[in-house]
Each structure stands twice: as C-alpha cells, then as structure tokens.
C-alpha cells in the first residue's frame, strides 16, 4: 500500500481545531489538577484528622478507579443526579483533573516530607505559624525538588486528554477519528495525530531531563 496524506492535509482545519481543543483541556486540567493536588497533598501531610482523612479518601478513590470510567460516569451518570447538563469538556476535565490531583497530591506530600525538620525548626523559632512556615520556607524548597515529577505529571495529563474523545469532545484524537472515518484513511489520520502529539510532548520531555540534571547538580 501507499501512504497518501492528501486527505489529512485537506483537513488541516479540523486538526487545528482539535489541537486547540487539546491545548484548552490540557490547560484546564493542568491548573485544576496541580492546584487541587496541592490542597490534597497538604491534607495528606497534615496531622489533623478532619484534613487528613478526606484527603486520603480522595487519593485512594481516584487512584483506584480508571480515568475513563470517571469521565464516562461524570458525563452519563452525574447529570441524572444533578439538575443541570454536563458538557463533554466539563466531564472530561473533571475526570482528568481529579485523577491528576490524586497523583500529584502524593508528589506534593513526598516533596514536603523530604524537607529537613530543621527548616521547620528555623521557621517556627522565629514565631511563624504553620501556614507561614509552609508557604515561605518549606513549599518553595519542596516545589523545586518536585519540579521534575510535576513536569512528568503534566506530560501524563497531556496524554490523558485523548480520553476526552470518549465523550466526543473536540480534541486531536477525536478529530483524527473523524478524518479517518470520513476518508477511510486510518493509517494516515492516526499517524498524523501521533506526530502532532510527538511535536507537543518532545520539548516537554526534554525539559524534564534538563530539570533533573540541574537538580542533581544543585543538591
């Protein structure tokens, strides 16, 4: 057989719309996932039960259920329990963000725990409250150590966005599927999608290598 990308190029518009959709849901899930993850991670680190227990339940629940199931549940089941509609973007963002929050929470917790007890001592001896010591002294150092792991999380989130195609959200894979079925060219269509992902992700992955090297050098 011969490769023929003409029908892919003819659908550049559709692919661009898909790329825009992918970037949009990626941005939403990155911000929501990593910031909610910080809150949950603080809860996992906290010693007060009313913070620790819900955070732990959250992490366990979302780590032990597949994202795809969560997305489908938010899209098909949740609207039956709520008095309003849920769009594909909302359902997919919820599933991916909550799942990412659960995984990044563990990154945050481990990062915070890796900070020497002496840093807490130094901060508290000045009269800082727990939250002040966390915000000013512990987190800035912990985040730096966590940066490679958080960037890896970002890469995972980027790939997970393809699951949004399960609820027909317009993103790259969804558009690839569409092009493939309209033009009977699955090889070219899915190859094009894979290449576009590679172009987006390759620099991100390189960035994690740089981060890891720099961190090793600094420590």
């Amino acid at each position, binding site marked *: 057989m011969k490769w023929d990308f003409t029908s892919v190029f003819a659908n550049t518009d559709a692919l661009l719309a898909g790329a825009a959709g992918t970037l949009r849901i990626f941005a939403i899930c990155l911000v929501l996932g990593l910031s909610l993850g910080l809150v949950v991670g603080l809860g996992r680190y906290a010693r007060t039960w009313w913070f620790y227990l819900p955070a732990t339940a959250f992490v366990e629940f979302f780590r032990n259920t597949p994202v795809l199931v969560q997305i489908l549940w938010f899209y098909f089941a949740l609207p039956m329990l709520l008095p309003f509609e849920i769009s594909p973007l909302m359902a997919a963002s919820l599933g991916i963000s909550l799942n990412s929050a659960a995984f990044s929470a563990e990154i945050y917790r481990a990062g915070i725990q890796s900070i020497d007890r002496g840093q807490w001592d130094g901060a*508290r001896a000045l009269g800082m409250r727990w939250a002040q010591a966390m915000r000013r002294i512990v987190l800035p150092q912990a985040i730096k150590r966590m940066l490679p792991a958080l960037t890896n999380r970002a890469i995972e989130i980027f790939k997970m966005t393809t699951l949004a195609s399960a609820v027909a959200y317009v993103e790259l894979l969804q558009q690839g599927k569409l092009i493939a079925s309209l033009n009977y060219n699955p090889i070219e269509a899915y190859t094009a999608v894979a290449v576009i992902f590679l172009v987006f992700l390759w620099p991100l992955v390189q960035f994690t290598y740089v981060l890891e090297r720099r961190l090793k050098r600094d420590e």
Partner: protein
Amino acid sequence: MSLLRVTGLTKRFGTNEVLRSIDLEVRQGERIAILGASGSGKSSLLRCLNFMELPTAGVIELDGQPLGRERRPGERIYRESELTQVRQRIGMVFQQFNLFPHMTAVGNVMEGLRTVRRMPKPAARIRAEAELKRVGLGDKADAYPAHLSGGQKQRVAIARALAMDPEMLLFDEPTSALDPELVGEVLGVIRNLADEGRTMLLVTHELGFAYHVATRVIFLADGTIHESGTPDEVLKNPRQERTRAFLASHKQYSL
C-alpha cells in the same frame, strides 16, 4: 524579678521520660551554660522553653505570666498564637544553623521581620543589614548560605534571631557542627552578646567558654538538674560524682 520561671517541667516522648520535674529560674542578664552527656535532655529542655516541644507537665512563666492554661490538674493547653508570641520573645540558635537555603543572608535575617512582624521591606532590610554588621558579616548580605562557611552560617543564624529583638536567647550547641578553626568566630559573637548583658541559655561542650562567659552552670543528667552553681563551683569544684566524671571525659576542652 525573674524573666523566666520553670516549675516541675516534665517531658515524655512516649514512655521515655527525658525531663523530670525540672525547676529553673532565669533572671534578666543571666547567662546559663547547660552541660550534660548526650541524651541527658539538654536539647529537650531548651526546646520546651520556647515550646518547640510542648511540655508534658509543668508550668513555664515568662515575665511572671504563666503560659497556657490548665485543662486538667497537671495538664496545660496552649494557644498557637500564644506560642508564636513566646517564640518571638525567646530566640533560638541551632547546632545545624537551619538557615533557609533559598534566601540570601539578608533574606534570612529579614524573614521574621517580614513574615511575622509584617515590617515593610525597606525597613526590614535596613534592620537586617545592621544585624549582619553586628555579627561581622556586613559584606555578605547578598550571599546564599551555600556560599558561606559554617562559621559564617552560624553568625547569620544568630543575626536572624537577634533581628526579632528577643528578650532571651537559647543556643543549642552552636559550635558543635563547626570545624575547629571556625569555632572562635562564633564564640566571639556570643561573647559580645554576653558583654551587652543579654540573657542567654547555652548548651555547649566548650567548657572554657562556659567558664569565662556563664554566670551559672547547670549539669543535666537523666533529665534532672544534677548540679548547679557558679562556674567555679561546678567546673572547678564539682560536688557530684557524675559531674566529676563528665568533666574528666571532657578534658580536651581545657578551662
């Protein structure tokens, strides 16, 4: 009047009782050296005084004010805001310095003023630079801790504590982590503070320094004050057998 009065201070970690009903009074301007073998509870005592560890039992009074309130007989509870207040009034310097590595020297010294005192940045900077100058590091303001020697780091840590205008300073083996040639510069700074008449408690193995600088020496053993008195009494003519044995094992630190 005494600045700090400790009555019946007891600290347990699980079933391990590391401080047993300690009574201690610290008057304004006193400099108390605390000696004792490893594990005798020296650090625990200092850490209870500024509530880095909560006492299991006992009462600590600062300026005549008992801290915390009694919930049940023998058990006190403390409010977080009360403890952060106390820690501002009682500064602490650690064996491992505990400088904040992501901040410059002057950033470290400003941190308490900025975050805790909410002082505007320019004023905090001026104050912090003055404190660095006092410990002889006026030219190191913008250096990060990683680029400072151990002795310089400990002097920054002292400046950081001083910036909060503490009424009393706690030193926990401030020179134990230093190379021998760097000990002198840190002891020099502490001696200057002594000459200023500051109130301080100093855990140290530097017997000579304790002898010359302290107004009182306390020997801790098994979580109790085993012997206490003037430097001459405790270091030259100890009455207790265990004090003598301890001093004999520290002969390398001559008076």
